[in-house]
């Protein structure tokens, strides 16, 4: 009994301290953002929100509005899909170069160590790949979008590029973690049969990593369908652009139609991706 108590006490203290720190953070943040939870929960605030929400109804279901929303949804879908494909094309090679255990260290290099000059070169390649992934990931999609609009002009194409480049950085990191974490036993077995590095990669590492890699790519596609809509705010078409216009011009009924469209497409992509991931893993 005594041991249980003495083990529980530090945990209780940690919880208390953690709670106090979190509470202080929240007070500080609410002060800085001028958010008053009291006002937020007040009847007046709810009434205002209700007024705004009720102004949206009914949705504009005239053929023209529905057609416009459908076009936006198709564009958004196209941007998200191509952005995700481009992201895999960027992220996969960079992640292979950015994985220590594949490039210069560990099991693959036990039997035949690298000559020092080549090892230095490989470490440099590894570091460069990591640095590139960091830059791609750090710059938010929307900033990439502005950069690409600056480069190639308005339209959905810069949206595709922005999604591909940023998500490429994210996927590169996630892929790297998967590749680093594969079971070593099959690789050892392959090495014992005399397989070279490339064969170990193709027959040992990739088959183990593949389901997880595909699952991550699908997961990012779910994220990207939401982000693809945002690209419209910087002039890259899709639902975002239409939502922007509808909000700015107070076209509330059309706005609701567009919101329904975005809800529909996001939910469908989420469900489809979840189904594929469940089948895969």
């Amino acid at each position: 009994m005594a041991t249980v108590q003495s083990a529980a006490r530090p945990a209780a203290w940690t919880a208390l301290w953690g709670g106090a720190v979190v509470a202080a953070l929240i007070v500080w943040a609410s002060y800085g953002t001028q958010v008053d939870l009291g006002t937020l929960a007040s009847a007046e605030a709810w009434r205002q929100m209700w007024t705004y929400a009720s102004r949206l109804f009914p949705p504009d279901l005239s053929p023209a509005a529905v057609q416009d929303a459908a076009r936006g949804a198709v564009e958004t879908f196209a941007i998200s899909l191509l952005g995700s494909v481009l992201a895999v094309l960027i992220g996969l090679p960079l992640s292979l170069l950015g994985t220590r255990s594949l490039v210069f260290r560990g099991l693959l290099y036990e039997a035949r160590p690298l000559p020092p000059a080549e090892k230095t070169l490989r470490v440099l390649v590894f570091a460069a790949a990591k640095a590139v992934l960091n830059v791609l990931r750090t710059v938010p999609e929307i900033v990439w979008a502005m950069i690409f609009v600056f480069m190639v002009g308005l339209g959905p194409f810069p949206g595709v590029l922005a999604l591909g480049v940023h998500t490429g950085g994210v996927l590169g990191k996630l892929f790297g973690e998967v590749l680093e974490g594969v079971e070593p036993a099959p690789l050892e077995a392959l090495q014992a049969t005399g397989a070279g590095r490339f064969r170990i990669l193709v027959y040992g590492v990739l088959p183990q990593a593949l389901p997880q890699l595909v699952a991550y790519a699908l997961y990012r596609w779910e994220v990207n369908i939401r982000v693809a809509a945002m690209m419209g705010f910087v002039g890259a078409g899709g639902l975002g652009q239409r939502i922007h216009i509808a909000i700015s011009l107070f076209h509330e009924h059309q706005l609701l139609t567009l919101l329904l469209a975005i809800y529909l497409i996001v939910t469908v992509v989420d469900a489809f991706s979840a189904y594929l991931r469940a089948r895969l893993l």
Partner: protein
Amino acid sequence: MTRIPTAPPADRFAASRGKSAFPWILTAAFVASVAFSLREAQVQPGVLFDRQAAANVARFVAGMFPPQLSPDFLALMLRPAVETLQISVMGTFIAVLIGIPLGLLATSSLSWSGVLHERASRRGRWLLGFVPYAVSRAVLSVFRAIPEYVWAFMFVRAVGLGPFPGVLAIGVAYGGMLGKVYSEILEGVGPRPLETLHAAGASRGAIVLYGVVPQALPNVIAYTLYRWECAIRASAVLGFVGAGGLGQQIELSMRMFQFDEVLTLLGILFLLVAGVDFVSGRIRARVA
């Protein structure tokens, strides 16, 4: 300790191999959608390599260096940087306030089925359990399917510019995600302790408090922290629609073609994100 292999692991797939057309259909659909999307998104890789694009990039890159590091500018950017952090904290807090009650209601094992409700009447279960369950699931699904920047844009219209709409947007969109994941975590709680408590005659509240919460808490904390990491990134982006923080400054500098300022701002953003990731990662490693 030696494991005797009974069957090669490949046998797991033998039954489905050859019979199923699924992979082929999937591949065909994928290729068709990509081809369709290439046309739909007006992809012209050639544009990337023409002289105009190269000149634009050169102008952009040349403009970025050296980054704007004058003390005046840095001092001016301190406030937006702090604001971004505060938006992420406050947004996550509101998301938790929304996510916990809705997540609890959206958990079928808590609201209408399973060991907690064995003794409830069928009608009571339907009215007091299933209806709130279905409603809260629907609300959560709407909250998370509308992206946070669309929420932000609507809230900017409703309450004006500044950090407040950013906080609300993160709160609502992430509240939807947290609620869903909380309910999945609660649903996945091991049933044994609950049945034991039930058999010992514990009330419903006691079962939740002593059986469900202790099992779920580490995962709930870890996922909330992960969402906070996402929130700091999101709060930077929300500025682009006028919701305060670093994003608003990046947008301004971008529009003024002050690329040296953009580089500095991206550097600040990187430090903020890395700092939050580090803190959150440390806590997550300890909790889980």
